[in-house]
């Protein structure tokens, strides 16, 4: 009897946990429903973007039902293949993604690219940033670039992703713009930004290459300084941080986050998604989510998104070829 009670208690709890983990179930009844496909596990950047956007859309009443599906694997390749496979039944699906889809399709981590999907819109963007310890001898990015030009091996860069991934590429891009050889960047790879930060503070590297919003959080703690960021103009969140452009290095980089529909998504449906996302920016619910996550708005709808992706693919592709990551 007792054991029965315990097992029932366990199952009830398990069911609760399951429901909470899986989010609300799949619902595809109304026209006004969005099903978010998240190519990574719970708690990651993609997960946060999709669930935050979904929260704003549903709480503001723009979308009636919102559901989520996590499907990780292959750096996002698993979810892309899945969306293509069930494209006909997935007209309500929005898959979240970001700059890595461009890098990973170039490096052939997965065979597909954004062209195999229907790009809907980029919604938020982040920039690259270069961070040094507070007591670092480098007080400007110019000094760092000069040191690199003199002897590339004297500058050690640390980042929170693999060699050939975003943090490494952004550093190589900046030093290339300074006239240096991008292939000679001494790069220490960590598997997460926080650990890379610990590496910087331990004194094993001179500079950390990371996302601007993450860098702001770290700088706020008072242990580090941001030397430069890769936006077109200064950010209102940190007006003291110069852009690479104004320091005399003609380069910029934006890590966008945005949404894709299934291949063959009808034009009308795509326009509907774009309209709903555009309306979202004016809602107070979105502002709450945006500020909570420290996101910077960067709306690039439809065809503008496609041409932006093409341009980014070209730039990053050229750099990766030069670095020897592509043949």
């Amino acid at each position: 009897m007792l054991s029965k009670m315990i097992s029932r208690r366990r199952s009830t709890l398990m069911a609760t946990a399951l429901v909470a983990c899986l989010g609300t179930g799949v619902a595809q009844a109304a026209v006004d429903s969005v099903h978010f496909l998240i190519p990574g596990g719970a708690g990651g950047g993609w997960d946060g973007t999709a669930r935050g956007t979904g929260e704003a859309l549903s709480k503001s009443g723009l979308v009636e039902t919102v559901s989520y599906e996590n499907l990780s694997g292959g750096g996002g390749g698993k979810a892309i293949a899945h969306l293509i496979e069930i494209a006909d039944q997935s007209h309500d699906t929005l898959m979240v993604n970001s700059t890595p889809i461009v890098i990973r399709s170039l490096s052939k981590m997965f065979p597909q690219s954004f062209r195999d999907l229907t790009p809907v819109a980029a919604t938020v963007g982040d920039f690259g940033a270069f961070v040094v310890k507070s007591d670092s001898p480098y007080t400007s990015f110019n000094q760092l670039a000069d040191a690199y030009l003199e002897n590339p091996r004297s500058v050690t860069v640390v980042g929170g992703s693999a060699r050939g991934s975003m943090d490494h590429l952004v550093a190589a891009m900046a030093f290339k713009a300074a006239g240096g050889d991008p292939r000679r960047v001494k790069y220490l790879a960590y598997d997460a930004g926080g650990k890379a930060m610990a590496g910087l503070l331990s004194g094993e590297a001179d500079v950390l290459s990371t996302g601007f919003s993450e860098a702001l959080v770290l700088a706020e703690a008072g242990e580090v300084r941001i030397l430069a960021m890769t936006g077109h103009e200064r950010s209102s969140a940190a007006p003291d941080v110069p852009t690479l452009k104004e320091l005399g290095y003609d380069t910029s980089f934006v890590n966008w986050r945005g949404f894709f529909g299934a291949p063959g998504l009808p034009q009308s449906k795509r326009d509907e998604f774009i309209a709903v996302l555009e309306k979202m920016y004016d809602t107070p619910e979105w502002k709450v989510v945006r500020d909570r996550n420290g996101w910077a708005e960067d709306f690039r709808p439809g065809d503008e998104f496609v041409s932006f992706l093409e341009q980014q693919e070209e730039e990053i592709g050229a750099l990766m070829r030069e670095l020897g990551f592509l043949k």
Partner: protein
Amino acid sequence: MWDGILTGLTTAVMPFNLLMVVVGCFAGTFIGMLPGLGPISAVALMIPITYGLDPASGIILMAGVYYGAVFGGSTSSILINAPGCASTVVTAFDGYPMAQQNKAGKALALAAYSSFTGGTIGAIILLFAAPALASVSLSFQSGDYFALMLLGLTAVAAFSGKGQVIKALLMTVFGLMIATVGTDITSGTTRFTFGSVDLIDGVSFLLLAMATFALTEVVMTVMRGQHNEQEPEMDMAALGSMKLSREEVKEVAPTIGRSSVFGFIVGVLPGAGATIASFLAYGLERNLASAKEKLKFGKGALRGLAAPESANNAASTGSFVPLLTLGIPGSGTTAIMLGALIAYGIQPGPRLFMDNPDVFWSVIISMYIGNLVLLILNLPLIPYISRLLAIPRPILIPLILFFSITGVYLVSFNTFDIQMMVLITVIAIFLKLLEFPMAPMLLGFILGGIMEKNLGRALTMTDGSFSFLWDRPLTLTITLIAVFVLLFPLLSAMIGKARTRGAEVAVNEGEG
């Protein structure tokens, strides 16, 4: 500082915050008990709830869930050999054999006492030394982590029984090999993925642990059942006594003490964490044990259970040092908590305990309370929890299978992981039938992956020279300790041989 502690105390003992600690510990314990669902899932589940609370209460709730989950994870490790989370994998090494010997009650009670002590000692060190410890956690560079993992690998001896040394070494190498599957971050290339997108991210530790422990154990039980018709019915006697004798307390007290301090220090390092701490503490304890006691490890040794249980709880507390004082998350769980703090508009860092003293101190004070609550909550529940073993096997076995598989699936949401679990289980069953030990493989896997990444970084820094091993005193010290630990049994055996040429020598040799 005393003002801060007083502020923290008043915040922490507010009835609502006390309630949060209790709720957090309770929820965490139950989620943690479910195989595969560990602290990350438990803390992530709490996030939507914490948005409605004020910062101190929210973080107190999450911290409670965190220790609760680490604590609850040990229960399923001990009772059904299915680790609740990564940091309690080692708990199963000696905890499950104890349960099989009808000492489940004692094992659970010892786990509760060890966790309590580990957590409390950790919280005391945190209280008095957090700012000072922050600089310690920052002094570790990649080369030092490499040396530390090298030291950890010497513990492989701890996982090999009599005449099993070669098998243990082979399994360690097997673990090291599995760790190389996936993307190599140092070169940016993928290895041993055979063109499959599913292998790009490598094999997850939890998946490997669940497959080689929980699933293998269940299938082996079913296979054994066919030969053994008369199944002894589990009754309350199976629980055994929960009391530890005076001798037993004397035996484990020093273990718990040193494992707590050691675990805390490892937990403070952003590149290590509770799982590594539990492995290292277990190895350390085995290395310190006398030749006779060494034999008991893996077969239900009290010290083998107390060491990882004290260490993982102390390490969980220790991981708050880099989080609170530097804003650096050392683990996935603390990364989620960092996100929650920032969402509150609180910036963890060197200024936290000046800017938000109520948050800083109340979290630390609530750690004591949390540990106490866990102990009070769990000791009386042990007889009921261990009744799980009394569930008839035709019901219990499918339940374990179900929870183990869903637990792993819920982390990745990738069905390929389930197929991989089945494949690894089949391989593990064959290896087990040939009497290969599984623990060294897990040790090789978890230490090997970290070791390789750190070696890659250290070599990049020095342009390919191994001079990093002796360039810094810290690295050199750790390396020398590793070499000493590796050679010590050999040396002591040689010295022992020279001294006494009696019957005892034969015993020592056999055990070496």
